[in-house]
Every structure is written in C-alpha cells, then in structure tokens.
C-alpha cells in the first residue's frame, strides 16, 4: 500500500513540475503556422471562415447560406449576377452568351459554352471528367423539380415553365425513384448537345433569375447515381474549385480546378478600372490555388485570427465596428490604426427588416389605429444609430434600396417616430395614453443577447407612449410553428432577396401567399392583390414604379407590417487580397479573388 502512495505522490509532484515547465517556456506555435505558409510559399492560399457548418453539398437539397457558399464554388449555374456591374444583372456562366428570346416572347434558346468539363472523378468513364452537354442541364432542372429530391426550393420556378409543375406533381405521385428519361417536360427541349430551349407559361421578365440560384446548379447524372446518399458529401461539378479535404466541422479545403472554363469579367461599373478591379480582365480564373475554410462559430476567435492575418476576409460585427470603425458625413471609415492594416467595404444589403402584425389577432387585427400608433411610436432611425452603429438606412418602402423600384426611384413616405401622432392614434384606437391596453407579445426566433437587446430597445420605445410589450423568445421551430399557425400577436421578421427584384418583396403581402407562404400577417386586400398581379410580370420602368407607389400607399394605411430598415454590410479584408468588390448576390466569390503572395510575406 505504501508503494501506491509513493507512486501517487511522485506522479503528482511530477505533474506539478511538468506544468511549471510547460507554462514558462512559451511553446512556439507560431513557428508551425509560419512554417506551413513558407512550405506553401508559391501557393496562393485564401483563408476564410465558416460561421456555421453546412447542411448539404447536394445543390438541390440545400437552402442554407453555409451550403450555398460551398456549392457556388464547386458547381456552376447557367447564370450568375455579374461580379462588378450594378444594379445586379445576370451574366452567363455555363452559356456561350445570354439566351435569345424567340418572337413569341415565350421561348428562350440557350447555347452552352464549348469545352466545359466536369472535374475528374471515378464516376466517369476512365475517371476523366467528361464534357458538359444539354442533357446535363435538362437532367439538373428535372432533378431540381423532383419533389423527392428537392423539398425546399421548388417555389423558385413554380408556375413559370411549361409542363414543369406537372412533372413536379408526377414525381411526388411516383414516390422515391423516378426515371427522368421516361418523364418529359414539354417546356424544356434538347436541340443538340450544345443547344436547348425553355418555354415559359407566360411572358415573364423574371423567368431567368432562378437559374442563377445555387439550387439550380448543374450536376452530373453519373455522380448522382454512383454516390446516391453520399452525393451530398461527394460533390462532382464543373465549378472553379473542388473539395480537396472534406471536413464539415474542421478545416474544409477547396482546391483550384486547373481546367476551369471561366474568365475574369472584362467590363465593370464606372470607376472599377481605376480601382484596379479590371486589371485581370479576360484572364482565366480562379487565381487562388487553395481555400482553407475552418469552422469558427464564435465571433471573438474569428476576429482575433483576422487581426493576426490568419484569415483574409471577415464580416464586421457591431462590437468590433465600434472599436475599429466610425461613421461621419462622408460615410464609414476605419480608424487610423486599422486602416493602415486592413481595407474595408460597406455595402447596402438586399434585406428588409420588418415587424409583422397578426391580422387575425382580436386586438391588433381589427384595430388599424392601434397598429398605426405602434408604427408612429417606433424610432427606426434611433434604432439604427444606437443599436446598429448607424449601419443601415430606414426604409420608406418595402423594397431594399439597391433594388430597382425602391425609395431611390419612387416617392414613398412612411412612418417615423412621432410621439404626438402615436398618442393621437392611440386615443383613436380607444386606449388614451395606453390606458386599458393589454400587454402585447412580440415573438423572436432566438434568445441570444442581440435579440434580447433588440427587444429591450423596442420595449423602451413603446413604453414612451404607454404601450407595454412582452417578449416571446422562441426556439426556431417553435417560432415557425407559432407564426405559421397564426398563434401570435406580433413577430420580428426579415426578408433577404431570392432575386434582386421588387416583386420578391411585394409578394410578402400578397393575399394567396398566406402561411405557410411568406405572408404571415394573414392580411388580404383585393386592391393590393390586383395591383401586385399587374406589376408582377411588368418590366421595370415608370409604369411599374407607379403601381409600386399605389401598393405602398395601401400598406402604409393598413399597416399589416411595419417596415423598418435596410442593413448595410461591412467587411474587412487584408491588404494583400485583390479584386474585392462586395457582391450581395455572390457571398463567396472566391474564384475572382487573388492574393498578393509576395506582399503577404512582406506583411504589406
């Protein structure tokens, strides 16, 4: 027994000593890091981070941004939104040119680019990636419309292509296995290996936009059939990168597809050339050899790594914005110490934040004056200044500012903070100074400190006119269930553009889009619905904008939702990152970026 104690004592003392030793001389872990970079000296490695882990790399099965960012780099679509040009417009990726519209205004003719190859993979004959053909496009569209594969995003094309809705219904009826070759879609025709056509159900200027979505990426039948359930972890695309090291919760490594067909854009916005954004015009992309994507879920380590130069590009959150940047009349700037080290962009998001009223709620739904009172009591500008460091614009219409038909083009007015009006409306509503008004519950979809602080701001605001607000911090699924079953009073909401068109925002209040569609207020107004349908398929221009103004007037008077603000997105990037222009429709444009490796080694 004595022996055991000696051993224990000895080992504990050794441990003490060992700890003392391991603490004092500092383990030089930097060496390992820099050693790695010098080994990869002539390699262009781009270090970015993933804030959340992706769900699926099967293009048709994903609908979360973490997945979309990866899919966009592994697969190609027919179109993308032009990297440099604003307003956002389509440009061809897998196509030789933009498709031509036949005289009937319904049929688009597409021609594929020549020499586009899938990445080498054992699923192909001899393991060599074969050339992309029209059949791949048709297969991919069908797979996208297969109800058994795609449970998330079919609504993007619903009703727009001849025969596709029927195909969608048929796959649902057939169940799991559908042989696409036996089930034709009349609106999609193969002409030859390079050419195909798509026929629309009606004239529709928005019809091509869904083909820029990552869900409509082009996949190879061989890969789908070979890998089956594992296809979502074993992507085979034509894209600029392929997966070199798959590690969902560790460091994901993408490597350059050396035979990629794409080139850097040759045209841009005025001023882009001066900024050096066109220096690589017409060169083969991608420039970067490898992308390293560690999963970093907490903001602090991500920012610390960025400041150490171990990450090349990062979004700037509220707390770090306070520390690193400021706002003046000319816009946003980095503090002096940081502007020497990093570059910054500030780009208006394609996002509208709003609050929803449940129109079926006995209190709020029937009392327009009460809803107006709440709208007058909200200080959106104050909210942006105080809670978001001025990183946003108050919206006076439902459309985010960069999109055609927004407040930049139309003359729309909206509620702004007005205590007298709020009190007047409250009296009109039957609750002078809030007397007799029951507590109103507002639902949030999470309970982190940001939502909690948002709520506290809102609560304080409404308290100034005597309205009492209570929070309902829900889990995400509970939130969805509550909202979509109409079991709520007020809820917070936000909408990010599926495609950069005002229609995508006005549809949020279209009557037939009631839950489970996106119109959670359950509001339905025949005038509004008619105007919406009139404007939906109209090309942008004064005529369409005039209809938007009419719709806005109805929204302003009825207040089924309170439109609040349009966030501005900030990012920092290292000085050695080139070709950076934030494109809100391309969140991960790694194929256009480059690294000044010489500059990076010198620590420019």
């Amino acid at each position: 027994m004595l022996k055991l104690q000696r051993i224990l004592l000895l080992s504990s003392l050794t441990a003490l000593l060992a700890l003392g030793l391991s603490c004092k001389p500092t383990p030089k872990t930097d060496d390992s890091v820099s050693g790695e970079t010098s080994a990869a000296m002539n390699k262009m490695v781009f270090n970015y981070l993933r804030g959340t882990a992706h769900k699926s790399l099967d293009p048709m099965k994903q609908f979360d941004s973490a997945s979309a960012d990866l899919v966009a780099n592994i697969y190609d679509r027919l179109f993308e939104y032009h990297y440099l040009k604003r307003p956002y417009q389509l440009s061809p990726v897998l196509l030789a040119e933009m498709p031509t519209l036949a005289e009937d205004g319904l049929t688009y003719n597409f021609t594929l680019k020549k020499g586009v190859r899938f990445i080498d993979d054992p699923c192909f004959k001899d393991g060599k990636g074969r050339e992309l053909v029209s059949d791949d496009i048709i297969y991919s569209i069908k797979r996208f419309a297969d109800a058994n594969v795609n449970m998330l995003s079919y609504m993007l094309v619903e009703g727009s292509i001849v025969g596709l809705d029927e195909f969608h219904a048929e796959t649902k009826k057939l169940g799991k296995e559908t042989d696409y070759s036996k089930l034709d879609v009349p609106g999609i025709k193969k002409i030859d290996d390079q050419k195909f056509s798509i026929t629309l159900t009606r004239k529709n200027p928005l019809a091509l936009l869904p083909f820029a979505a990552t869900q409509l990426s082009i996949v190879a039948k061989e890969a789908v059939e070979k890998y089956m359930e594992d296809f979502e972890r074993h992507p085979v695309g034509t894209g600029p990168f392929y997966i070199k090291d798959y590690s969902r919760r560790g460091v994901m490594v993408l490597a350059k597809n050396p035979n990629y067909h794409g080139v850097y854009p040759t045209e841009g916005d005025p001023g882009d050339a001066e900024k050096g954004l066109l220096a690589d015009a017409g060169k083969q992309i991608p420039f970067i050899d490898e992308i390293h994507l560690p999963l970093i879920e907490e903001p602090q380590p991500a920012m610390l790594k960025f400041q150490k130069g171990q990450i090349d590009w990062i979004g700037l959150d509220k707390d770090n914005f306070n520390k690193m940047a400021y706002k003046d009349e000319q816009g946003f700037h980095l503090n002096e110490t940081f502007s020497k080290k990093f570059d910054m962009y500030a780009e208006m998001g394609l996002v509208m934040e709003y609050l929803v009223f449940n129109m079926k709620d006995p209190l709020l739904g029937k009392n327009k004056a009460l809803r107006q009172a709440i709208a007058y009591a909200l200080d959106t500008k104050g909210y942006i200044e105080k809670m978001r460091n001025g990183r946003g614009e108050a919206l006076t219409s439902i459309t985010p500012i960069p999109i055609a038909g927004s407040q930049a083009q139309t003359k729309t007015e909206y509620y702004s903070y007005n205590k007298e009006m709020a009190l007047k409306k409250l009296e009109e509503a039957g609750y002078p100074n809030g007397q007799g008004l029951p507590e109103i519950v507002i639902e949030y979809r999470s309970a982190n400190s940001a939502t909690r602080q948002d709520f506290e701001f809102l609560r304080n605001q409404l308290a100034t006119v005597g309205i009492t607000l209570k929070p309902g911090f829900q889990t995400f699924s509970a939130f969805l269930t509550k909202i979509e079953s109409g079991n709520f009073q007020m809820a917070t909401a936000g909408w990010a553009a599926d495609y950069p068109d005002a229609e995508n925002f006005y549809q949020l209040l279209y009557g037939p889009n009631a839950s489970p569609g996106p119109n959670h207020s359950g509001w339905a107004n025949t005038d509004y619905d008619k105007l919406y349908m009139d404007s939906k398929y109209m090309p942008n221009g004064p005529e369409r904008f005039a209809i938007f103004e009419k719709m806005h007037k109805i929204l302003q008077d009825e207040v089924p939702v309170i439109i609040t603000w349009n966030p501005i997105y900030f990012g920092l990037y290292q000085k050695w990152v080139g070709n950076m222009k934030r494109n809100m429709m391309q969140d991960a444009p790694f194929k256009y970026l480059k690294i000044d490796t010489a500059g990076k080694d010198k620590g420019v």
Partner: protein
Amino acid sequence: MLGYIIRRLLYMIPILLGVAFLVFTLFTTVGEDPVRIALGNHASPEAIADLRAKWGLDQPLHLQFLDFLKQIITFDYGRSFNTGEKLSELFAQGALVSLSLTLPPFLIAVMLNVSMALIVAYYRGSIIDRFATAFFIMAMSISYLVYIIAFQYILAFQFDLFPINGYEHGLRAIPYLVLPGIIIIFVSMGPDVRMYRTVFLDEIKADYVRTARSKGAAEPRVLFKHILKNAMIPILTYTVVAIPFLVLGAFLMERFFSIPGIGDLMINAINTGDFPVLKGLTMYIAIGYSIFNLITDILYAYVDPRVKLT
C-alpha cells in the same frame, strides 16, 4: 472478481434502459422539431407530413421507442437528420478529439489539485492556507466564459503564446490543445482544491491520525501515509462525479477554440432536434460512463481493502 465484472456489465442494461427512456421522452415529446427546422420557412403541410413519414416520426411513440431500443442493440443509430452523416462515423471522429481536449488536463488537474490540497491541508490555519483560500475562491468567482474570452485574448492574441484556435489530427493537435487545457486546469483548481482540502481535514481529525501522531509519527509521514490513503475513496467519488461536467466545459472550449469534438455537435443537435445524433451520443456517453464507473469501483477495492467486490 470476474463474476463481479460480469454482474456489473449486466447491471448496465437497466441503466441504459433508463437513459434511453429519459432521452426519448425528453426529446420526442418536447424540444425542437427537426422537420420544421429542416424545411425552414414556408413549408407546406404536406411537405412536413412527407418528411415526418420519411424519418419515421409519424409512427406511434411506442413503436418509435422500440425502434430506438433496436438501434441500441445493433449500435446503428442511422444518419443525422441534419447532414445525412452516419452517427457511428460522427462519433468516431468526434470522441477522440473531445477526449484529446479534456482527458489530459483532467488527469493533470486531479494530480495537481490533490497535491495542492495536501499542501494547503498541511499548512491549515496558517497564512498560507488563508491566502490560498482567498486565491482559490477568487478564481472560482469568475465565470468560465470570462476565462475563455480573457485567456484567448490575452495569452493567444496579445502575447502570441498559443495559436488562437484550430485543430489538426494526430500529434499536431498538441499546440492547439495547450491553452484550452490550461483553462480547464485553472477552472478546476478552485472547487477541486477546496473539496480535497475538506476531505483531508476530515481525515486529519480522525482518531487514527491522533493515534499515529501520539505514537510520534512525523507530520508529513502522517499526512501522506495515513491520510492520503483514507481520503482516496471520497476523492475517487468526487472525481467520477466531475466527469459528466467535462462535457459542459468541453462544449464552450470546442466552440471558442474550433475543436471539432462532440460537445459542440451535441449542442447543435439539441438546437436542431437532430434525434439520431442526440440518441446516439447519449447512449454512447452513457455506456462509456457506466464502464468508467466500473473501473472506479475496481479501483476502490484496490485502494481500500475494506471494500470487497461482491
């Protein structure tokens, strides 16, 4: 001995049944709905019904539970709702990573804390004891979260002593694990040293110590020979109880230091109602825990001949 071990292994069955029942009840009846989360906004009622059927969540609860029992027996918990990955693979990848994070500091901490507690107990009542008490209590009154944030910021960022975060497989993981390890040791110090000190003081007051002392045994000898031996049982008990709490700590560590272990996997599974992952992880942990417990009990018998394994 062998008979004892076999009996104890058989005893795992009712415990695992209890765990299975508990986890099943808690997560199937409440908690996040995986179908709603997978389908997100604007899912049609039929899409929800379809997916529910696909995942077998439309079955009556007792059948789902039977299914779960079958999974436990076959060790096949299927694939994650979220990512389609096989649970056995997820676990195999994550468990070693988590262990590499928590086990070394845990072992070091036990030895270190027992040693420090012995020292403090030896100098009981003196200024050293008081100073140590104040120090450990101060260390205890700061939140785990604050330690992580502060240590990462100061030691890794400002003084460049450690990598900020990250993980690599194999031995190359070591540099990434040092700082989290130090935090784990540091955080365990306050409560553990105090607890062990209490245990030692209890033994110091026991009759046999007085006897030993009265016989003229030197103080250090008394301390190490008699007290350490007798204090082993409460120490072992306390150590075992502390193990489940490692997961709580490991989760925050894994998030802040980007270590792909199972703590973070579990939190994400809770938040998305990923039943296969939750069920599988809990059962794996429960089995591991039971086995660990058994080892502890065998150690009891080794340390203290009064305890008989029957």
